[in-house]
């Protein structure tokens, strides 16, 4: 059962890694990258490294995603629903 779960996670890791590189929209890239970080943190847990798992969940899936979103907003790659048009 554990091995099956691990295999699913590893396949998910490869799929998210390739998918995040092939996206046309940068927003989708960042979203898939955070999913990659989440899968990675569960994998660290399965590899019996709980210290790394906590750090990866906080940094890889949380803070780095936020920083990427902020950068995309700074370079105007995310369109805000602006109130100016209405």
């Amino acid at each position: 059962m554990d091995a099956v779960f691990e295999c699913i996670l590893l396949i998910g890791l490869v799929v998210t890694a390739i998918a995040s590189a092939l996206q046309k929209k940068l927003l989708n890239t960042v979203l898939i990258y955070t999913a990659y970080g989440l899968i990675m943190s569960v994998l660290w847990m399965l590899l019996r490294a709980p210290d790394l798992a906590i750090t990866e969940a906080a940094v890889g899936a949380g803070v780095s995603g936020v920083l990427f979103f902020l950068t995309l907003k700074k370079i105007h790659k995310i369109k805000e629903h602006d109130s100016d048009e209405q």
Partner: protein
Amino acid sequence: MIQMSNDRFDKLKNWVDGTGPEHKHMQRSQQLDAVHYDTPKPEKTVAQQKASFNTFFKAYKQVAAVLVGVIAVFFFIAIFSMPEFGNPDNPTNNEVVERYVGSAEHETGAENVIAGMILNYRGFDTFGESNVLFIAACCVMMLLWRDKKCFTDEDRIALELEKRHEERDVILSVIGKIAIPVILVFGICVLFNGHVSPGGGFSGGSILGASLIIFSVTYGSDAVRRFMSERVYNIIRISGLCIYGVLFFIYIYCGANGIENGLAQLLVIIIDIAVGLVVMSTMFGFYAFYTKGEL
């Protein structure tokens, strides 16, 4: 005398302007060069340019694919030549690991061997990492800090407009109110229990930083400024690094192994908290300077 100086002046003037007798050959060569360069090149049509771009991008993709393939082959060779995971006969399982696992609890007072390892045996390493985080935060401050002394009136108006347009998302604020205390308590728990359970400075600090980011998003930057002004922020950053540096170097100066178990445990706890403070302020500083250019 005056005549001579006039001559000299003329010479100097000619030399500066490049019109003296020694510059004649240069002028000639320049003219030749000009003639050479001015001959009109056959201009490319739009279609030709497009075709050349297309060939470039096709070649780019192919070359990139080939390079990725080559690197992947090397990686796979490396992976398949690695020893089996968890095998007791692996070369990594040597006397260093035996020493760490066997006597970390006795020597450092940390039940979590990893905390004892990174904060005591490899304390210099972790000190360097904290310095890297500190300097990264300093660089972000240098690049993105909006100094209000240098504002023009237009900047002020733009800032006002930005503040007026700032509206809170309802879902975010409701969920934030429920989630922030839980995340904060969990972060503090991870940070303070780093010596007995998984966690410690880096994970606890990043969780605390994330909770501060969520707090800033839900309640606005003014609410954060109430307890963390620029001064407090700088004090937290610098004191974290200083506590670590001073304590660890006193520990090394004392011989690094001769202190009592309880004192060593206290040292690990305090250094853990110092690392947590540095990581937390770095995470929150990144967010604050990315969004507003100030705390």
